[in-house]
């Protein structure tokens, strides 16, 4: 027995996740016991107010995630969900839209009783973001919910809208008094990437929020960090004894972090043109993956310790001395991708024919720490590549001495440890093995751990996990402004260089990227892993 009921040490919040709870729950709940691993964390009474409910993300991910949380019993009694958009809808119309979204996209089975109960708390406020009256109406709506449904004056505002609209909405929240809790209940604001398009705009964006919401109430969602496999990187590295001793320059030759997409830009031309692959995914997702892979062990799995280590390693990132040879970028041209003929980037609707936006970017970064000095981290991200795949690959050095004849090990490559983030989440280890037979011949084989195939069925979707963390107020999985700024500090010089440089190279859709990216690797005597 580790703690008696009533013992103050026994009253810490029960948190079954890899990452510990940091928000102290009320200290006097005798029903919570850290040994009681069955009882999950449940959000307290609250209202979730969502801006941008007509968007794709809201329909495909957020609304289903709200339902799934309710279905898993993780939302509190009386939980309410308010939509705000420029639509002439009544509460029932919005409930119908939510119902459709849930039916189509929820991951847990649809239960009428859960929906009935959830729909009682669904409200809609019509209006545009510069409409004072609409926001006053919203303020009345949430206060009514407090009175009717006991939501306790706790509001989370989810801004699923373009960043250009943030200032308007945030100012309106302030003007209408919604952002001020007056000491009763909490206020939280959730924003989605992109967090700016360079350091200056990221700071500007932050300044918009800063005067209105304190930094600890701002939750920046990078849905990659909500993925089980990403959190599993921490478990793999720090809960095991096998990997950490070789997780350094003594054994690792280089690291490749890849995010490949098979799709083109689709309908996102307006957003994508002028942004490009590096700003779109490298600045946030790939640098976060780099940070988790390269960081030192945090003192504890709480928000502050994790962020401290991530910030340390991000500030140790060094750019290549020559940006011309240490980076590569490309644009997909027309070609055949996955058996279909597709248009080139410059021919996509809404993209100017002289656009210099890259759809493929690759960088070589160094990490100036004792652990990683001299080990290059290669990052690449692109669209219209052969398949969709995100992975972190640690490529190990060759054995210093092989007691076999050279011909025996001709086919032996580097050992590798690959963490697959999506799809088919899991871990692959590549090592040499004897080919059965009388001759001594060693060849590469793979050993696979399929995290995805075995556990995804009921493991929560990233948004589900993140939404719950917002409602509970548990911040470890959310990047802080400092991390965002460090990301831009790394990327800005590269973007400046690219802007002053020639146009991106062309690569046929469905190929593995421009020739310059392979040349970049070849100069270092290395090669990209096959996509």
């Amino acid at each position, binding site marked *: *027995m*580790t703690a008696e*009921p*009533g013992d103050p040490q026994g009253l810490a919040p029960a948190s079954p996740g890899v990452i510990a709870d940091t928000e102290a*729950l*009320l200290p006097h*709940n*005798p*029903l*919570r*016991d850290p*040994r*009681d*691993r*069955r*009882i*999950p964390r*449940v959000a*307290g*009474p609250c209202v979730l107010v969502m801006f941008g409910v007509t968007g794709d993300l809201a329909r495909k991910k957020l609304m289903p995630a709200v339902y799934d949380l*309710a*279905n898993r*019993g993780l*939302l*509190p*009694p*009386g*939980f309410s969900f308010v939509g705000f958009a420029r639509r002439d809808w009544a509460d029932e119309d919005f409930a119908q839209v939510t119902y459709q979204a849930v039916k189509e996209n929820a991951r847990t089975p649809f*239960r009428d*009783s*859960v929906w*009935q*109960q*959830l729909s*009682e708390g669904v409200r809609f406020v019509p209006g545009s973001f510069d409409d004072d009256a609409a926001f006053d109406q919203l303020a009345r709506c949430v206060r009514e919910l407090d*009175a*009717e*449904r*006991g939501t*306790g004056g706790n509001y989370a505002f989810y801004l699923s809208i373009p960043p250009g609209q943030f200032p308007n909405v945030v100012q309106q929240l302030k003007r209408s008094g919604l952002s001020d809790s007056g000491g009763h209940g909490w206020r939280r604001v959730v924003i989605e990437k992109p967090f700016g398009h360079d350091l200056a705009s990221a700071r500007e964006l932050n300044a918009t929020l800063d005067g209105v919401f304190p930094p600890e109430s701002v939750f920046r969602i990078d849905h990659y960090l909500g993925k089980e496999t990403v959190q599993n990187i921490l478990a793999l590295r720090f809960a095991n004894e096998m990997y950490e001793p070789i997780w350094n320059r003594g054994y690792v030759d280089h690291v490749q972090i890849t995010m490949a997409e098979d799709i083109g830009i689709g309908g996102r031309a307006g957003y994508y043109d002028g942004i490009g692959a590096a700003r779109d995914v490298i600045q946030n997702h790939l640098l976060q993956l780099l940070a988790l892979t390269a960081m030192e062990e945090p003192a504890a799995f709480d928000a502050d310790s994790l962020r401290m280590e991530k910030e340390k390693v991000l500030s140790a990132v060094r750019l290549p001395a020559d940006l011309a040879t240490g980076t590569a970028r490309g644009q997909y041209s027309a070609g055949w991708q996955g058996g279909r003929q597709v248009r080139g980037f410059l021919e996509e609707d809404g993209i100017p024919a002289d656009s210099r936006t890259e759809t493929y970017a690759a960088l070589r970064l160094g990490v100036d720490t004792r652990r990683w000095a001299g080990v290059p981290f290669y990052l690449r991200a692109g669209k219209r590549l052969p398949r969709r795949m995100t992975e972190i690959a640690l490529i190990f050095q060759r054995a210093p001495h092989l007691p076999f004849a050279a011909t025996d090990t001709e086919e032996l490559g580097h050992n590798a440890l690959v963490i697959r983030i999506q799809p088919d989440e899991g871990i692959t280890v590549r090592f040499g093995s004897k080919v059965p037979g009388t001759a001594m011949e060693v060849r590469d084989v793979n*050993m*696979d*751990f*399929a995290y995805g*195939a*075995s*556990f995804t*069925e*009921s*493991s929560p979707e990233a948004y589900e996990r993140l939404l719950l963390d917002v409602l509970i107020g548990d911040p470890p999985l959310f990047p802080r402004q400092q991390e965002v700024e460090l990301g831009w500090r790394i990327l800005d010089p590269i973007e400046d260089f690219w802007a002053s440089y020639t146009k991106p190279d062309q690569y046929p859709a469905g190929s593995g990227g421009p020739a310059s990216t392979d040349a970049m690797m070849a100069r270092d005597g290395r090669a990209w892993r096959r996509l």
Partner: protein
Amino acid sequence: MTIDLTDTNTSSIHEALTQARRRLGGPASGMVLTLIIVTDESAQYDAVRAASQAGREHPSRVLAVITRKPKAESRLDAEIRVGDTGPGETILLRMYGPLGQHADSVVAPLLAPDVPVVVWWPDEAPPAPGTDALGAVAQRRVTDAAASDEPQEMLQTLAKVYQPGDTDLSWTRSTPWRTLLAATLDQPYPELVSGEVLAEPGNPTADLIASWLGVRLGIPVRRGESSGPGITEVSFETPEGKIMLARPDGRTATLTWPGRPERRVALHRRDAPDLIAEELRRLEPDEVYAETLRALAAGTGQ
């Protein structure tokens, strides 16, 4: 694929398994545990189905031990299912005659290496699960008091013979209620004077919840009866009035709190796959269950 082996032994079963896995292209065996189900022919279908559904979350080797015709001559028949029930493997072991008394000799060589063993008695459990021949192999022993004819007596027995690693599905069924109760007391609450749990007569889960509340809160908690379904109400007397969670329809609960609006929340009953999946999620001894069960048996919880 399904492979039937009649009058066989464990090494033939092993060989058949290896061959089947090869024929399926040698899928990686990412199995996280071995689950032994001790059952009979009439109940095996539901239990194995629940286990293979739970197996999507916990890929496992499922060994169903089915004893048949105790008077017949000793014989072992095996039915191996690989590749079509989910990520794991299922082996139905039908034991005839005296062999039925020595199931452990069949099961031991078939345990998946290096992973924990869980044994589950969906129906009648042995008098002392921890010292049972099969129970002794396992880290975790799952019984179900609700399936016995005398659930309350069964809980008493389980309390007497409790060993770390024992657990009961009637405790698993309490999780959604306990979650909601814990969440309710996350907010500041008035002094609790006494409590009451209302449920169908003979509902062991209600007994456990009452005992748990009594132990945790240090107040008397009465176990009352209602017409169901399952547990219908948990309430606390406070100086300000009654705090009450009521679920009359088995689906939606209403939280009543003096001076506050009524709040509703879905609270549905769960079926076997969900229960067994929860049971397999954590394999360390459940100390809270042990305390609750002990208090229930001692009558101190209420």
